């Protein structure tokens, strides 16, 4: 996780700098009914010239003592849904002292956090009423981006004191968290604002937004999602695909298989229609990625080894070094069953004799037994 956060942090820093060049600190005044510039803190791609129009939805967030805050849907000029948005005003109370927090939040079509805009007239403030600095806003963005933040499972009072043993609700996954780790992730002096913002962004609403999208999504949006770099979008699209869709979009799917995250690759591998495994031409793009995909995906590919052509097996036999011990065993078992052809045998011998190969001995054993 630390990795992810660090990368993100660097990205945000870079991004933040780019922003400074475009707008003055203080940000543009938010438009009431739409958006024609990228939100100031934002995780999604934004094409230059995009203009989004806000449409009301029936959804809202209920905020303590203030009431309902509507959720809008931002659509592009072709009426395609792009983002959800809400202008939030909510009280933040610390030690009996309450103040209002104003922030405009954005979510993706699947209810994930997409970004926020600050209100230039009503900046966020800390306990001591100091305004947030740009670094503070960036830290908030970073925090909101982490859907698994340490704030997730905690009640606010558990963040201030050392967590007490809680009967029944302390999951396997809580024990190590310390206040120090909380401090590292929240804006200093603004724990309450951060906490409230995080839970607004990641609360009950996510599921509702996703449902709303699911209930009205068009094929066009689904295809758009497939072409997005957002892995949740890709998963959403793939999850709705039937055999015909898989065939129609197979080039893009193969491309995601190569470049996507392991979870999406795994999904593709497990859900490719049978037809793919019966048609060498359709399979090839996937086998081509064999040496480059992650270990989990490679295992899933190997489950289809019995559908692979001799040429594919031959190609794989030049990549024995990328396989784990168990993967190598699966491969050897299959070529043992198929009958060992000369080009593959040659590659095995080279591998078995290469002292640098940790699992050379396994191939050696295989060759010995095979030749017996």
């Amino acid at each position: 996780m630390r990795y992810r956060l660090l990368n993100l942090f660097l990205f945000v820093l870079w991004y933040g700098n780019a922003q400074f060049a475009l707008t003055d600190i203080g940000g543009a005044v938010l438009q009431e009914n739409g958006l024609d510039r990228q939100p100031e803190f934002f995780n999604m791609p934004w094409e230059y010239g995009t203009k989004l129009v806000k449409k009301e939805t029936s959804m809202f967030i209920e905020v303590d003592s203030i009431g309902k805050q509507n959720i809008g849907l931002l659509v592009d000029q072709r009426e395609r849904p792009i983002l959800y948005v809400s202008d939030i005003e909510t009280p933040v109370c610390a030690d009996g002292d309450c103040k209002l927090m104003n922030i405009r939040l954005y979510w993706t079509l699947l209810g994930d956090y997409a970004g926020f805009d600050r209100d230039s007239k009503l900046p966020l403030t800390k306990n001591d009423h100091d305004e947030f600095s740009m670094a503070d806003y960036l830290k908030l963005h970073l925090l909101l981006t982490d859907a698994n933040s340490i704030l997730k499972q905690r009640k606010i009072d558990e963040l201030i004191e050392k967590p007490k043993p809680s009967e029944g609700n302390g999951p396997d996954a809580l024990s190590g968290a310390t206040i120090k780790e909380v401090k590292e992730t929240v804006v200093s002096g603004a724990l309450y604002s951060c906490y409230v913002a995080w839970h607004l962004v990641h609360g009950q609403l996510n599921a509702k937004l996703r449902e709303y999208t699911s209930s009205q999504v068009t094929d066009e949006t689904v295809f758009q999602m497939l072409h997005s770099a957002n892995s949740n979008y890709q998963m959403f699209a793939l999850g709705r695909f039937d055999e015909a869709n898989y065939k129609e979009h197979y080039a893009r799917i193969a491309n995601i298989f190569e470049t996507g995250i392991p979870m999406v690759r795994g999904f593709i591998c497990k859900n490719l229609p049978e037809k793919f495994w019966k048609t060498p031409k359709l399979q090839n793009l996937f086998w081509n990625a064999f040496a480059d995909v992650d270990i989990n995906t490679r295992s899933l590919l190997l489950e289809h080894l019995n559908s692979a052509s001799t040429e594919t097996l031959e190609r794989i036999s030049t990549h024995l070094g990328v396989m784990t011990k168990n993967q190598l065993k699966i491969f050897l078992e299959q070529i043992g069953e198929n009958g060992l052809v000369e080009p593959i045998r040659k590659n095995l011998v080279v591998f078995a004799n290469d002292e640098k190969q940790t699992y050379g001995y396994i191939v050696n054993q295989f060759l010995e037994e095979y030749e017996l």
Partner: protein
Amino acid sequence: MNRIVISIFTFFLVNIVGAQDILLEAESFDNPGGWVVDPQFVEQMGSPYLMAHGMGETVQNATTQVSFEKSGQYHIWVRTMNWAPGEWDAPGRFNLKVDDTMLEKALGLRSGWGWEYVGETKIGKNKSAHIELVDLTGFNGRCDAIYFSTSDKEPPSSAKKLAEWRKTVTAESNAPEEIKNYDLVIVGGGIAGCAAAIASAEQGLKIALVHDRPLLGGNASSEIRVHTEGIYGNFERILRMLDTEHYPNGHVEAEIDQEKRDKNVKSYENIDLFLNWRAYDAKAENNTIQYVDARHTSDGKRIRFTAPRFVDSTGDGWIGFWAGAEFSYGRESVDTYDEAWEKHGELWSPKEADNAVMGSSVLWGSKEMETDQDFSEVPWAMPVAKSYKEVKGEWQWEFSRNDLNQIEDAEEIRDHMLRAIYGSFSNAKKEPENAKRKLEWVSYLVGKRESRRLVGDHIFTFKDAVNEIKFPDAVVVEKRAIDVHYQTVLEDENNPDFISEALFYKGIQYYIPYRSLYSKNISNLFMAGRNFSCSHIGLGGPRVMRTTGQMGAAVGFAASLCEKYDVDPRDIYTGYLPEYLELIESQKYRKIPESKK
């Protein structure tokens, strides 16, 4: 006593040669010194072994005395493995010393378990030798056995041939000679097994509790140090004797609870504790288990346990597995039991079934010392740790990958975690602020979360929990959130592959029926603990140890009724449920006997 076996081999070669040989099992050394006995992977690599788990500091020599039948010139082999092979010096190197001679050959170099030839030695007229294992690195060198032979024929390496060879060399009969009979045999002394033992012992049953470690508690023991989560349900009185305080996982306070637990279990006269005994087989006839065979983890003695009924609380469902009980492993497809949770989609429950499971952990920690502390370079750890830096490990240090089975590949999983730990610590040590840090504790036991789940009459699922179904035979109750883990590398390839994340589902209260606590097809087998009958997601909540403890206690009381009426576990549900539930209710208020006050 040494487990040394002398046999005479006759090889029908061109000229007939009579060879003297001795197989010396490392785990039976008179004095293991700083080496630890590791019996975790017997089923895969063949035997408990000695390991130099020094966290980077060489451990004291393991020593033993060997007697030979004949003097003469002997060839020596050591069965060992390089646990992190690659382009660096093997991390776990060691030497063998025979009497005063250190044999030159460094050992622990080969990939995969097998024999390494050490050299020759002369056994003199006294027909005895003093043997020492000399650790060279402090990084988990391992020695399974030492073989002396006047012949130069290397013993077999492949698992199957080796097992046969071992039997021949040790002239071991098929069945253990000693047979012990009990009312109930419980295998696995985690919290579940201990609770089952106490509950059934309180009802007057004569119990054997067979556990492969010196300390009780499984993952909650001070050897693994996971604290117990969950509620007490109906069994507060019993579970308080066994559970832990809520300290961070890996905390040294586990030792205080360890003492409490051991003392409590030992206070029952009708529990015969077999500590350091590992079950290795169970035999069923007509779907009824006849016996369980177990072996002492260091002296190699064997016992056959017979009983009308058995409890599998091994976590890995070993007894069920050997006896032919139905079991499952991996994730069901989302539709199998209707376990979807939109929010987390595929990470929660997949569209297509697969063999992913929650991973295993090795907990560890370090401490600040008064002076600067060195830590060796660990190049062999870096391909795993990469640039990750840490000075302690919590529950998130977890490893699961779909090409690895949590049982069959447990040694590789443990070793992967050791590389992650030593590498991350080494990276952290490069920071000036950690100059005084020293590794304090690294477990060598792999703490598991999920492997085989034995199938019962009811398979407990996420839906049962979400719908809070109050089964007529609800004996276990839990409020703790359901959490299921996944490896973060699935979301980003740049993440370390040994760190996990948890997905939580918070419900209110859910129940587990008694029917999930006995086998569907093995008539006299109960199960308690994480190997109870559930789906992958179903395990997400109740795998924690107060809940597994509740299962154990529930099983213990059921077993006492089985004994009373001479019936099978299933019959308690069909014929004696009211009495069973009443027994559970009444035991809550059991008076503490004067002697225990």
